Structure formats: C-alpha cells, structure tokens
C-alpha cells in the first residue's frame, strides 16, 4: 500500500502516572508523525483508565506508553486488563523507558506487551516495529 494509507493508522502516545519526563514521548510522537501516522498525544499524568478510554474513543490501532518512573510492572498489566474488559484485543500495546530485560520478558510473555524499547533505541526501529505489527494485523 502507498504511504498515503499510513494516515489511517492512529496511535495513542501517553505518559501514565507521576512521571513528568515527557521529552522521549514527544520525540517518538513527532517521529511517528513524520512516518505518516496519526498520533493522539494525551499529555502527562494519565491514569490507566484514562488511557484506555482515550484509545476506545479515538478507535486507536495502537497504544504506546512512555514510563520512566519504575511503575511499569503495575501500569502495563492494569492497562492490559482494562483493554481486555473493553474488548480492545486487536489494539497493539507497546512502550519504552527504563525497563529491565527481565521485566520486559515478563510483560511480553504474561501481558502481551509486544515491544519494549529502552534508551538508545533508534526511532527507525520503533517505526519499523509499528509498521510490522500493523502489517501482521492486516492494517497496512
């Protein structure tokens, strides 16, 4: 499909919890925009309920979380369970931040968080990941 079709893919970029470091989230939001995606940026201090409600109202294809607070083992599972409750099972959940490999593996295996990107990840890697995941879902 052509580049044009990218603009139908809608991605929530959110900062959950008490973590004010939003530079990373903004850089990723901007990069996704430049790759042709529509990014809905929620801003800071979002609760899991707010993030899932936003994804529902915006009919999002993906939710990307930026987490630097260490609360990822609480927040990702909570968001996954709310997504299950709302029937958002075809929505991609991914994220980035300071998250150990061990935790990333647990999040992947137990909560289907399909991509966790740590410091130093190139923007191209993230964009390619989203494209691949959307392709797998037949959305690209």
């Amino acid at each position: 499909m052509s580049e044009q079709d990218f603009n139908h893919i809608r991605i929530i970029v959110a900062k959950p919890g008490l973590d004010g470091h939003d530079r990373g989230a903004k850089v990723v939001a901007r990069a996704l925009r430049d790759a042709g995606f529509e990014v809905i940026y929620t801003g800071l201090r979002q609760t899991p309920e707010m993030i899932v409600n936003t994804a529902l109202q915006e009919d999002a294809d993906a939710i990307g979380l930026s987490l630097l607070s260490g609360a990822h083992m609480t927040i990702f599972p909570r968001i996954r369970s709310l997504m299950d409750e709302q029937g958002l099972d075809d929505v991609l959940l991914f994220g980035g931040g300071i998250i150990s490999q061990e935790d990333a593996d647990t999040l992947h295996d137990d909560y289907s968080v399909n991509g966790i990107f740590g410091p130093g990840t190139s923007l191209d890697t993230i964009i390619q990941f989203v494209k691949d995941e959307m392709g797998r879902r037949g959305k690209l």
Partner: protein
Amino acid sequence: MRWAVVGNSDNLAQRLLNGDKRALARALSKVERGAMEGQQLVAELFPASGNAHIIGVTGSPGTGKSTLVNALIRHWRSQGKRVGVVAVDPSSPYSGGAVLGDRIRMSEHTNDAGVFIRSMASRGTLGGLSRATGDAVTLLDAAGYDLILVETVGAGQSEVEIAKEAQTTVVVEVPGLGDDVQAIKAGLMEIADVFAVNKADHPRAQQTALGLRMMLDIANHAYLWKPPIVKTIATRGEGVDKLAEAIEQHRQFLAESGQLAQRQRKRASDELFRVLRRELFRQLRERVGDDYEAAVARIAAREQDPYSAARELLERPES
C-alpha cells in the same frame, strides 16, 4: 428473514444508537475514511440526527480553544447535558501524519460517560475535512449528545467553512494578536456569532474587546443578532458561564427568528454540493483515466491552458 439482511453496518448503527461507545468510535473511523461503508452508516443514522446544538469553536493557534472547550464541557456537564467534541488538528502536508493534542486540555473529562471526545486530523484532501467533520457531527448527534463542539484552527478556508456550518460559531480572540485593522478584515471575524476574548487577565484585553466592539459598530447593516463579546479566562473557568449563556441565547435567537431553518437549509445545500462535487469528480476521473495525468502534464509544460484541457476532458466521449 430479517436477520438475513442485517449486515455489519446495520449492526454498528444499532449498537451506536444503543449507546455503545466502541461502536460510535468505529463508526467515526468509517465515516472519516469516506468509503461506501461510511456513507451507508450516515444514511442509516441520518434520521436519528438533528437534535443537537452544534457549536463551532475557532480561532488562531494558541488562543486557548481547547482549554475553553474543556471549561464549557464542565459547565454543561454540571447541568447534566451530554457533550460530544470533534477536535481537528492539521495533518502534515509532507508525511500525511499528524500529532493531535487537543485532548491534553480536556483530560478531566476522559472518564466521564457523558462526554465523548474525538480527535481528527485534517487529512488535507479536496473538501475532505468538512465532509468528515459534517458526518462525524451527524453520528454524535444520532448517538444522543445534546451539545456538539467542533474545534478547528481558524487558519485555512476549510476550517472557516466548518465553523460556519455550526449553528453557533464562537470565535476565540486573545489580546496582542493584532490591531483593530485586523478586526475589520474579512474572513474569520465575519463568521462569529459569539466572540470570546480569552486570556482576559492580560492588560490589553479591554482594548481587544473594544476593537471588536468597534468593528461590529461600524458594520453598515442592521444586525438581527449582534455578536456578544465575552471575556474569559479559560484556565480558571472565569467568564465561562457567561459564554455558555451567550451561546444559549444565540440558540434561542435562531429558533425564534426562523434563522435556524435558514441555517439548516444552507448546511443541507453545502452538504449536497460537497457530496455531488466529490462523486462527479470521482466519476469523471474514472472515465478519463490516464488522460487526466496527460492533461496535467500539458498544462505544466504550458502547452495548453487549464480551461481548454478541462473542456476536452468533460467532452470526451464515453469509452
């Protein structure tokens, strides 16, 4: 058998009417894409629409439109009204992507079951934005929202067009953007039914309000409705009750003066025109095929003028 004719789209429309937010969100995506499925949804839901008060909110970037919308939602929610929002931000002309950030200012209403907020990228196609927002309003209206706010940046023609289509258009101004000559220019200023002078704690707010008042006073026609100018401080919620009151008064004026019917007729006419223009262009494009690109190339090379090229395409016999 009834169940045999119920397709997917029927189902979605029914779920939307039953108050299913997921169905509304899905349906909005479909009308935004503008494909046949979206058109069918509008056709099914059109009879259920027509009850909401549609309010356009427009103004320059950074004037506080989203914060003002947030404060208005709070006001109407305290009266138990259900509020829908369509917030439009621009698409990139280069990548087609967008960052939609209007929701940031409306976070406090995200978990409120009586509020539905949808971000929309302008997607920049020929009349596409106004078609998509018009259809989105129809869906929110059918879903039973009492008030529907359409927020757009008042920069481009299509954004002004959208705002104009609302029953009540609020133009948001702030102090310090320009002098009173800006206020007598054509365009944005002319479409306001209500002016909000936001950031009214700024020392020049009074001058901005006076500039607008002067602009309204020197108009050479008698107003049936003279747009009120309301000073607001959206971040603190100050003046928002007065703004809501001005919007409500305008709604009453429309109903009592017969202008509501007139506006609805204008909106219907615009909608039909847009659908026909899009469909006729699509049909022509299909009929002439590659000749279209060939004509573009001839005009770019200055071998032919656009009028003659258009005439040739229109007169081309059916193949």
